[in-house]
């Protein structure tokens, strides 16, 4: 051993390290991914053991702490999720500053927490659980159950001292719609490590009771708090329940696996209570409205039929009266037509009679006039002509006789001194008998001389 070794007190070394770290890292921070292996809270400060593993072997370890004030700020930013994020087994993304304390050694001071890595990890687990449930045929079992229309008997699983539990009961029993429920309570811790077992047991227990539904409630909590309901054991128990399970695990964003496999899930315990009494209420009101509708429509139908009826009756009366009236009118019209036709007929005949009479008279008068103008004048004129002709002819004949008479009359010769002599009334000249002694008559103009022939002297 040589004395030229520089020997430092530990404190000096540590101070030197402290100084070195401070000088080199005081203004720097690092985002670090690690798994929390242990988490302790003391006086509001959080003390974490961080580790990193590779292929199942731990390759790094480090302690870290988060001071009370920082924790409060970050927790507030994360809506209180930080409590559940800081849990052994969770992977976390932390903003850290390297610090060295002469007594406590090297530590990481947590300045901020990014929850996404942690949540992602939870989602991954959730997915795996769902996948497993599906593979095992458990995932849809609840959905195949029958939820009665009226739920009256309820198995309630939850932590009796929590507000969610109390909210559920109070909403169920003091609403204005329907309160005729019976609740069998199955208390179970719903937070922390014991929750899984207790919830599973409660569900199993409830199977032995004649209830309509199992209600699983939890009065809200951080995302990491609710992560217990992503547990396979609980999900499996819910899925295998013969009784429909309705969950009311207070959360605002994502569903947990318990919600998904359950028959039905509501956001909050209060919502489950509402769901239950409203179901009864809706049922009742549907019943009521259905019946009301039946009555209303039935009476409406009757009313309508009665109206229709009255109309039909009225039409019956109306049309009957119309028919009768029409027929009466027809009778009147027929009488009218009859009278008109009869009068037409009579007038026709009157006209015809006048026509006939006129014709008869005209024919007769024409006949008379024809006779007058032709039959009488011609013969009468002929008679006149013939009469005159006859007279004329006779005149001529008479005149002829007269002239002949004048010519033949010997008196003029006698007047001139000639005489006529006859014997035995024969002209002397023509007389051939014995003249001598014959008596000769001689006519003169004024005398008839009778003499006896004395001698005849031939000339």
């Amino acid at each position: 051993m040589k004395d030229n070794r520089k020997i430092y007190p530990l404190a000096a070394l540590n101070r030197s390290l402290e100084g070195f770290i401070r000088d080199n890292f005081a203004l720097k921070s690092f985002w670090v991914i690690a798994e929390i292996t242990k988490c302790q809270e003391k006086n509001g400060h959080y003390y974490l053991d961080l580790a990193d593993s590779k292929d199942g072997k731990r390759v790094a370890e480090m302690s870290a702490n988060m001071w009370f004030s920082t924790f409060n700020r970050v927790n507030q930013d994360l809506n209180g999720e930080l409590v559940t994020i800081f849990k052994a087994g969770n992977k976390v993304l932390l903003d850290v500053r390297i610090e060295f304390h002469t007594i406590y050694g090297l530590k990481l001071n947590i300045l901020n927490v990014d929850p996404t890595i942690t949540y992602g990890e939870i989602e991954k687990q959730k997915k795996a659980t769902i996948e497993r449930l599906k593979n095992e045929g458990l995932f849809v079992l609840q959905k195949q159950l029958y939820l009665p229309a009226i739920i009256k008997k309820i198995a309630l699983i939850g932590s009796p001292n929590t507000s969610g539990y109390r909210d559920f009961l109070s909403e169920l029993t003091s609403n204005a719609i329907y309160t005729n429920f019976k609740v069998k309570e199955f208390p179970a811790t719903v937070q922390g490590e014991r929750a899984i077992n207790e919830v599973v047991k409660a569900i199993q227990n409830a199977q032995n009771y004649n209830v309509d539904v199992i209600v699983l409630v939890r009065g809200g909590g951080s995302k990491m708090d609710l992560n217990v309901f992503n547990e396979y054991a609980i999900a499996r128990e819910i899925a295998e329940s013969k009784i429909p399970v309705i969950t009311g695990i207070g959360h605002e964003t994502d569903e947990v696996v318990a919600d998904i496999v359950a028959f039905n899930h509501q956001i909050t315990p209060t919502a489950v209570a509402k769901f239950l009494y409203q179901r009864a209420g809706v049922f009742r009101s549907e019943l009521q409205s259905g019946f009301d509708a039946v009555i209303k429509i039935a009476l409406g139908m009757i009313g309508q039929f009665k109206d229709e009826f009255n109309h039909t009756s009225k039409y019956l009366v109306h049309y009957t009266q119309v028919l009768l009236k029409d027929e009466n009118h027809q009778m009147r019209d027929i009488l009218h037509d009859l009278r008109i036709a009869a009068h037409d007929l009579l007038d026709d005949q009157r006209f015809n009679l006048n026509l006939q009479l006129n014709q008869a008279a005209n024919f007769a008068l024409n006949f008379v006039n024809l006779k007058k103008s032709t039959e009488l004048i011609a013969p009468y004129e002929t008679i006149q002509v013939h009469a005159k002709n006859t007279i004329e002819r006779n005149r001529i004949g008479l005149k002829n006789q007269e002239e002949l008479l004048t010519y033949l009359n010997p008196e003029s010769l006698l007047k001139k001194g000639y005489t006529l002599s006859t014997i035995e009334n024969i002209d002397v000249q023509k007389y051939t008998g014995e003249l001598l002694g014959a008596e000769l008559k001689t006519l003169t103009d004024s005398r008839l001389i009778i003499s006896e022939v004395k001698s005849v002297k031939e000339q």
Partner: protein
Amino acid sequence: MKEIKLDPKLKYDEALEQLQEIVRLLERKEITIDELASKVKMAKLLVDFCREKLDATEEEINKIIRPESSDEAEPF
């Protein structure tokens, strides 16, 4: 010679006949001297008689035809 008178009832035709008979006798000179004057007289009488008859008939016909006025040419 006694006055010869014709029977007023003598008809025109008979008169004419008698006249014509006389004329015929005259023509044939079958009248005796004794009768001659009277026959001629008779014939004259007959002629007059006939003429009168004709005149009377004509007048009568005219009267019949134109009963009142003669200026009426056409009685119808």
